[in-house]
Structures are given as structure tokens and as C-alpha cells.
């Protein structure tokens, strides 16, 4: 399959997925009991004025038959027009332009940190004795089982309040990123290590590793040239999932560490029933996910063009 064909198929698939998400949201809005205009404006509690309701009706074409409404809805989305957040009173795209980079930065840093930690841990586990290996696998499993919201609080307690080493909130120096990134990265690192260790062990005891040793390579060289590559594949394969779980975790982490971002925006949008905002954020996170998936797939294709590992 050529790269161009692959890209075309990916883009087509992505559009279909986005369309499905949008459709689901459209149906969701219709399913909320009561006046859909009011629902869009945040439900009865929003105390939307009559004018605001009329504006929403016009904007979403609520006086039109449902198929027309649907087409209007899709048409707007296609033009990247997500409307105005009634809660923030700002265009949704503007808010997203603000929060998306922040969350993506956080998630990417956490992803990188998790990878590093996992590699380090997997490499250490290689050298460990039986007890060490057992202990290592316990640590991984426990790490993967720790909820973000708990870990974040504990890290703040220890490193910010008690020791005073790291800031609990961002002060613009980047030091404020350390704790949130760790909070997101540790559980993920636990997951990744579990995966990596298996494949690392398999790779290091494989015939090709023996072959590499037979041609005079040191154990460390074999680890770098072969072990890592094989260990990273299953983890890479999971990167799309990992990224998505990081976006989930970001909701909690952004709340705890008072960071602006997609997760916190979505949470407050959900709390305020801010449907335009919710729609925009959901579609954008789907888009981000699709991009990340395509990216990891591209990397996988580079590492393993023949799909030997799958």
C-alpha cells in the first residue's frame, strides 16, 4: 500500500469518524428533554433571555424541520464554526485555540516522560534478579492502578507543601509543569513498562539478539539496537490509546493543578451544559486523537514497514 493511498484512506476514515461524532452529538442534543434551544443555552438554570433563546433557535435552525437542522449543524461544523459559548460568552474556536495547545503540551510532555520512565524501568528490570523483577512488576502494576486525582494530591502534599521543592501551580517558569506531568506520566509509565518488559525480554532472548552477540556486539549495543526497537513497538502501538488516556487524565490534573486546558474547559462546559462548547471540544479532541493515531501509525510504518511485528 502506497503512502499516498494510505494517507487518503486515513483522511477519509477521519472524516467519517468526525461525522459520526458530530451526528451523535446532534442526536444527543435532541434527546435532552425540554426546549432544545434552552438545552443548547445550558438548560433551565442558565436563565437564558428570550432574545438569547431566539438567537439560538435561529442559529441552529430549530424552527426548521429536523433534517434541515441537521444539515445546518453539519454545515457550520464544516466551516469550523462552533458558535459562541454561552457560558464564557466567547467564540468556541477562540477558547479552543487557547486551551488546546496547553493540554496538548501537557499530554505530550507526559507521554515523553512516561516513555522515558518506562524505558528506564524496563532496562533496569532486565538486569534485576528474580526478586527485583517481581518487585519491579509489582511497582508497575501499582503505578498503573493509581488514580490521577489521588496521585496529584499526594505529589502536591509531598513536593510542594512538605518539601517545597516544586510549585503546585504554574508560575510561568515551567517548573510548575513538573508535578502535573509526573501525575499524568507515572500511571502511564506503569502500563507501558508492563508492555515493554515483555517484548524487551523476548527480543533480548531472541535468535537475532544472539546473532548480534555472535558477530561481536556488546550486550548494551544489542539492547540499544534491537531491544529498544522491539520494546517500543507494542508501546508505540498503544500510543494512540495512551494519548487518549492522557487527555482523560488531563481533566483531573488540570482541575487539581489549576491549569487551563481542554479538560478543565470541558468539565466546566459540561457543568454549565454549555452545548456549543461541549460540541467543539468533543470534536476537537476526536480530531487530536485521530491525528495522533495517524502519526503513530506513520512512525510504526517507519520502524516496521513490513508489519513484521503485528
Amino acid at each position, binding site marked *: 500500500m502506497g503512502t499516498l493511498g494510505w494517507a487518503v484512506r486515513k483522511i477519509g476514515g477521519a472524516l467519517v469518524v468526525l461525522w*459520526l461524532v458530530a451526528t451523535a452529538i446532534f442526536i444527543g442534543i435532541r434527546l435532552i428533554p425540554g426546549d432544545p434551544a434552552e438545552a443548547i443555552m445550558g438548560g433551565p438554570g442558565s436563565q437564558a433571555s428570550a432574545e438569547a433563546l431566539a438567537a439560538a433557535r435561529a442559529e441552529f435552525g430549530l424552527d426548521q424541520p429536523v433534517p434541515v437542522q441537521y444539515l445546518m449543524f453539519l454545515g457550520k461544523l464544516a466551516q469550523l464554526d462552533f458558535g459562541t459559548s454561552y457560558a464564557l460568552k466567547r467564540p468556541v474556536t477562540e477558547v479552543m485555540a487557547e486551551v488546546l495547545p496547553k493540554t496538548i503540551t501537557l499530554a505530550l510532555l507526559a507521554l515523553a516522560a512516561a516513555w522515558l520512565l518506562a524505558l528506564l524501568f524496563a532496562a533496569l528490570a532486565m538486569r534485576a534478579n528474580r526478586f527485583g523483577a517481581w518487585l519491579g512488576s509489582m511497582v508497575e502494576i501499582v503505578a498503573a*492502578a493509581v488514580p490521577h486525582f489521588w496521585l496529584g494530591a499526594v505529589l502536591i502534599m509531598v513536593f510542594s507543601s512538605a518539601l517545597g521543592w516544586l510549585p503546585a501551580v504554574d508560575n510561568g517558569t515551567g517548573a510548575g509543569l513538573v508535578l502535573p506531568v509526573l501525575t499524568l506520566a507515572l500511571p502511564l509509565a506503569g502500563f507501558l513498562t*508492563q508492555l515493554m518488559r515483555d517484548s524487551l525480554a523476548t527480543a533480548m532472548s531472541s535468535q537475532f539478539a544472539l546473532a548480534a552477540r555472535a558477530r561481536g556486539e556488546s550486550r548494551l549495543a544489542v539492547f540499544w539496537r534491537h531491544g529498544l526497537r522491539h520494546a517500543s513497538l507494542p508501546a508505540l502501538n498503544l500510543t494512540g*490509546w495512551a494519548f487518549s488516556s492522557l487527555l482523560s487524565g488531563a481533566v483531573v490534573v488540570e482541575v487539581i493543578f489549576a491549569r487551563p486546558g481542554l479538560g478543565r474547559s470541558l*468539565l466546566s462546559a459540561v457543568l454549565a451544559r454549555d452545548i456549543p462548547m461541549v460540541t467543539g471540544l468533543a470534536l476537537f479532541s*476526536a480530531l487530536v486523537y485521530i491525528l495522533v493515531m495517524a502519526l503513530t501509525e506513520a512512525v510504526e510504518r517507519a520502524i516496521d514497514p513490513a508489519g513484521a511485528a503485528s
Partner: protein
Amino acid sequence: MSRLSKILAWLFIAFWALTALAPQLIAPGDPLAINPAQAFQAPGSEHVFGTDESGRDIYTRVIHGAGDSLFIGLAATAVGMGLAIVLGTLAAMAPRWLDGIILRVLEALYSIPSLLLALLIIAFTGPGVGPAIIAVGLSTAPGYARLVRSQIRTLKNSEMLEAATVLGRGTWLKIRNHLVPNALKPLLALVTLGIGQAVIWAAALSFLGLGTPPPAPEWGAMLSAGRTYLHLAWWMSLFPGLAIVVVAAGATLIGRALGGKARTI
């Protein structure tokens, strides 16, 4: 799975089952009984896990909270798994076009991160235990469904099934004797792994104030209350947090022992 770890696994399951079903056997107190005079007691001989801001015994609450927390986790996994088995089997057995459609739908579900999907659903349904279960269930379904699908597809094309064909087995016999039992085992492992994660996500929703309402002793909700007093009463956060970790890690261990991999959740 070694004998010892098998026994440990069963003990673990039995303990939590007992805790969930008959908490008063392990913690005879009333998890809702307040006693303001006893508020913020540190763990000690009287209150092993300490007390919370209303003087409620945290040990009692953690034990009595198991029912709620585990129920949500189990119910969410059941929802996710049920959906996944239907969709995954359908996709695996269906003609290519239908398989394609189901895969797209799954991808659409998958493309929104779990907690965001849960939030999205709650945006439409409002908060509560029911929506939390559906939300967590739905958000885990696509991962399971893909696995079910690939599992059944692999089995469908396996030499094992070919051998059964050559031996003259009919479709029904092949499904009953080989397809279903062989697909089920890894799923069981996965479900076990998944329950741990579902418990965590459900707790996260409670933590965000979108799950179980107070004063029910659900772990996520307890943590949510405890974090306010992190500087005063660390034990309020520690023990419910530990309960979640123990359940999730235990589920992972059992799942792995059953042959599961830590993926697709």
C-alpha cells in the same frame, strides 16, 4: 498461574465480594453515623483509619463503600463488555461492508478519550450513578469490542477451526465447542483487568462531583471530600485512595494471571 497465586486470587476476590455484599460483617459500624465531636481523629486504636470531617469512621466507610464502588465498576464493565461482545462478534462475522461500518462507529467512540466521553454523555444526561455507569461502560466498549472482533476473526480463520471443518463439524458445533469457549477466556482476563480501570474512572467521575452523591461512602466521593483536608487529615484521602489502588492493582494481577495483557482498556 501457580497454585499459590491462584489461592491468593480467590482469597482476594472472596474478600471483596464479602466486603461488597456483607460489609457489616467486617465493619459493624454505621458508615453514615456522624459524631462531630470526633471529627478529624488521626488513625489510632479507636479508629484504625481515623475519622473524617463529620467524625465518621473511615474504616467503616471504606469497607461499606466497596459495594458502591465495585458495583459501579462491575456494572460499567458489564455494559461495556455486553456492547463489545455484540458489536465485536457482529463485526467479525459480518460481511466486509458491515464490518467497516461497525469499525468506524467503534473508532468514533474510541476517538473521544474515556473521561471526555463520560463528560459528554453527562452533559446530555446530567450527573448521577446511572449516567456514570453508562458513560464509563460506553467509553470502554470500543476497546473491548476491537479485541472481541480480532479474537473471533483469528479463531474463525484458525487451523483449529479448519481442522473441525475437515472433521465434518457443523457451524453450530464449531461455535459452541471451539469459537465461544476459546474467545471467552482471554475476554475474562480482559474483563478482570477492565474492572480495575472502570473502578478508577467511576471514582474519577465521583471525584469531579458527577458520580455518587454524598454522603454515600463511595471511594471517589470520599477522596473528593478528603482532598479539601489534605493538609489537616491526610488519612481521609489515603485510605479510600489505597482501596482504589488495591482493587485496581489486584484486578490487574488476576487479569494477568488469567493471561490478559495490559492493553486496550
